């Protein structure tokens, strides 16, 4: 998934390490610091739960795709889980389009329900919004 937690943190470092021009001091720089703080919060959430969310989603997709050949995730780094997830999602896109074309209502609705679950589990939370 993009941006990844490392990309978020590297972006914060790069943005905050750049000395602001005189006209960027004040509200603009304060705003930049506030967004950096938010991105750090999101990176923390990804570090805390990102692997579990990806392992769940990959397992759910393998079940849906009826993929007996796939043993599951062996490397639990976020990068490896994302790489496996990308391939599974590509296959899901093809499967869903085929189900729609075939009029397979049961599979279509099963996939729609899975989308809702996937999106809910991926949600991040703002510090003030819960």
């Amino acid at each position, binding site marked *: 998934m993009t941006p990844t937690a490392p990309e978020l943190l590297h972006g914060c470092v790069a943005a905050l390490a750049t000395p602001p021009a005189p006209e960027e001091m004040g509200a603009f720089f304060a705003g930049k610091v506030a967004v950096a703080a938010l991105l750090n919060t999101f990176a923390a959430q990804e570090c805390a739960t990102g692997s579990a969310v990806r392992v769940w989603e990959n397992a759910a997709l393998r079940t849906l795709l009826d993929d007996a050949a796939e043993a599951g995730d062996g490397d639990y780094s976020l990068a490896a889980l994302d790489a496996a997830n990308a391939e599974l999602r590509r296959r899901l896109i093809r499967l869903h389009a085929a189900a729609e074309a075939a009029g397979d209502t049961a599979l279509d609705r099963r996939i729609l329900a899975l989308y*809702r679950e996937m999106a809910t589990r991926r949600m991040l939370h703002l510090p003030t919004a819960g």
Partner: protein
Amino acid sequence: MSIGEALAAYLTAFWGASVTVENLTRIPGGAIRETYSFDAVKTGGERRGLILRRDPTGSLIDTDRTTEFLAYQSFQGLAPVPEPIVLEAECGPLERPFFIMSRVDGGTASSPFAPDPYAPHAEVLGRELFAILGRIAGADPSAMPIARAFTAPALDACWSRELDYWEEVILRDELHPQPIVRAALRRLRRNPPPPAQKLSVVHGDYRSGNFLHDGQGRVLAILDWEMAHLGDPLEDLAWCLDPLWSHFDDSRAAGTLPTAEAIRIWKAESGLTVDPKAFAWWRLFNSVKGQGIWTTSAKTFAEGGHDLVLGFSGLYTARRHDQIIADQLERLVVEEGWA
């Protein structure tokens, strides 16, 4: 030469009178154009508060500064907008194209993700917000300056032109496969809306956070018209009512007043109707359009664009829109019978 010195030199030549620039400060929030506030002081002491909008080196979406400038020209007297002063399309004194407009003082633009930012004047503010949107929708664009910038789509092609554009953006910029928005794209194409009732100027980003208000329930200025175009007036209404802009309270339109009341005001001001089937299409489309914007922002950020707003948009708002789209898709298919 600093930005302030370049601005002073430019305005001195533009007005034919010596100008100094004071209180130059960059304003946060815009992820599309760099925005600066400053005072232009002419010899003799005449002082004018102005805003500089300069093209970015990298941005969320392809936007045309000319569109925004022409929109401000078009809605003078029809909606609260800043006065456009000058448009510079060449890479001149400020190194990138820019335009200058009047500054509207005394207001604030609330964060679209702040809980209940308009209390205790939310309902009063909402009535004005949706009345203004109704006036924009009801206006005849044919004689407006902004009409020069676009080829008018046929009424039955408004939806497909927008869908084609955003589908191309999503497919072009997608870094990680997005099955939810892909499914929505297919469903939108299979279940098209009826033709637009009329052709309107569509603001393109009319929502909470893109207007100035005085904290007492009055809208001072509608901003950020860079995505304006000609199209179906329901597009703007649906975007403004997208759950992403609801301040975490889906019962209220853009964090202001009950949604049904917002729609009633829009209909009364515009003289238009809201066909439920058409509106359902435009609501899902707008969530897809949002995902298109966030997809591009994620790509730009991942490629080293260090505007942190791009990182926020590419991550948080993208995931919220995935959830919003998934909810809509399931409801439209299971409850509304979409093919």
